[in-house]
């Protein structure tokens, strides 16, 4: 589902964010990505979502060779991916419902179908009663869950999360991680960047460790071949 072969990412200015990274995640797999800040976690996720392009090396995601994917096809490629950010990227000029509906509006669903799917997604993250609320009136845990609902509402094959629990207390963090486990159970390939080692080691999923742009450690490795 996700495959990196000797991927190098160098930002303008010569700073090398990733060097010679190779990894493979099969369909339906789940893994955590950890490491210090600046180790290259976000860069790796951005490469998968085509927010950045690799300097060298091959990346294949969801059956697409990203190196040769033309610019105009990027939107269609991204529709197969759900992305969650630490600061959840919600739009504050519209309601929770409209935030979550955005991917479906873009995909061209009709209003009744949009309503049905948005409510299902909000129900899943436990915020069905907040659909009319404005994002600013929600707690940060709730805002994060709206972000998750938006990422999964169009049923992407791949779910990426960049520090989704970065601002949350341990109990809320665990709740969020359990949500991800549930999505993974229904077949969504899930990759989560997190430095909360204490939490993620208890979840029984492989952990990829990045250090200064290199993949240094992966354990256990049933689905992952670094």
């Amino acid at each position, binding site marked *: 589902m996700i495959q990196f072969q000797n991927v190098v990412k160098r930002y303008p200015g010569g700073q090398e964010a990733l060097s010679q990274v190779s990894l493979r995640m099969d*369909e339906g797999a789940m893994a955590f990505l950890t490491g210090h800040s600046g180790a290259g976690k976000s860069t790796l996720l951005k490469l998968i*979502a085509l927010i950045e392009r690799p300097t060298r090396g091959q990346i294949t995601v969801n059956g697409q060779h990203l190196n040769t994917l033309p610019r105009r096809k990027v939107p269609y490629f*991204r529709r197969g991916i759900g992305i969650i950010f630490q600061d959840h*990227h919600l739009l504050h000029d519209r309601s929770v419902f409209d935030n979550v509906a955005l991917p479906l509006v*873009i995909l061209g*669903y009709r209003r009744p179908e949009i309503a049905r799917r948005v409510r299902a997604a909000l129900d899943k993250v436990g915020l069905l009663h907040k659909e009319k609320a404005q994002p600013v009136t929600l707690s940060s845990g709730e805002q994060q869950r709206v972000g998750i609902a938006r990422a999964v509402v169009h049923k992407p094959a791949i779910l990426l999360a960049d520090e989704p629990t970065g601002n949350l207390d341990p109990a809320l963090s665990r709740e969020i991680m359990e949500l991800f486990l549930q999505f993974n159970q229904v077949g*969504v390939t899930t990759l989560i960047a997190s430095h909360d080692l204490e939490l993620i080691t208890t979840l029984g999923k492989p952990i990829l460790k990045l250090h200064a742009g290199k993949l240094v450690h992966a354990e256990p490795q049933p689905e992952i071949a670094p």
Partner: protein
Amino acid sequence: MSRAPARKARPARGNAPPIHTRFQAWGVNHAQALVFSLGRLYRNPFGAALTLAVIAIALALPSGLWLALKNLQAASGDWDHGAQLSVFVADSVTDSALAQLAGRIQALEAVERAQPLTREDALAEFRALSGFGEALDLLDHNPLPALVLVTPVPAHQGPAEVQALARQLEALEGVTQAQVDMQWVQRLQALLEMTRRGVVLVAILLGLGVLLVVGNTIRLDILNRRREIEVAKLVGATNGFIRRPFLYGGLWLGLFGGLLALFIVGLALVLLNGPVQQLAALYGSDFRLQGPGFSGALGLLGTAVALGLGGSWIAVGRHLREIEPQ
């Protein structure tokens, strides 16, 4: 959320609804973008009003000038029919021969009226109209030639036809010269033509101004919604989807600017019509100001919409590309 485990890699469009739904949704999407962009104007009334006022004034100015020109042309068109030829006759021609000559000219197909004026008639008229009558008394003979005043039929009022008639008349026996009294009309026409060019130039410059005003407004709008654009791109919005509300925003600015410009022009017409009619009455004319008419109004609105769309197209093409998720 209920979802069967995916078994193989989906194609990127795999989670899209069926094609007919998407096609319908495409129409709905356009309608939504149209209404949404209108709502944006409504939510920012002060800024929108300022922009619209600038657009309206920039459109009303050349439209008003064009109308003024059109009216001047209409007014001078009336005078065209006054084209007259003075056919001067040799002194050797007697008064009775003059009357015969006038009769022959009158018989021509292109001539409506031919009025003979003997040397004495001409002297009397000159004395009456010029105010130089006393100067004439110092001369011992009448210096003025006899002439025939010729008015062509309306179908022969054009400059080329009148010139042809003049040549025809000059060929007649006893005629020394046929002079066309329409130089001043030609001069006025030339002046109007020059003014028309000037109005076209002003219109082009102000049109360019409208293009830039709309472009800049849409540019600021895009920059203000940068975050929204980033998020939309992240969840797979195509450039077309993102572009749409901005393009429609430009369309609304153009349309409303055009309507406001029409209103300004209409107001100016109403305010000017009274004095113009008074002036025309003093010249014994029942001339009234002409409005832009249906096609003129439609042309103005069409131009305004095209400029609005064009301006936003320029801004959108240039700036949407630059905004990518970070």
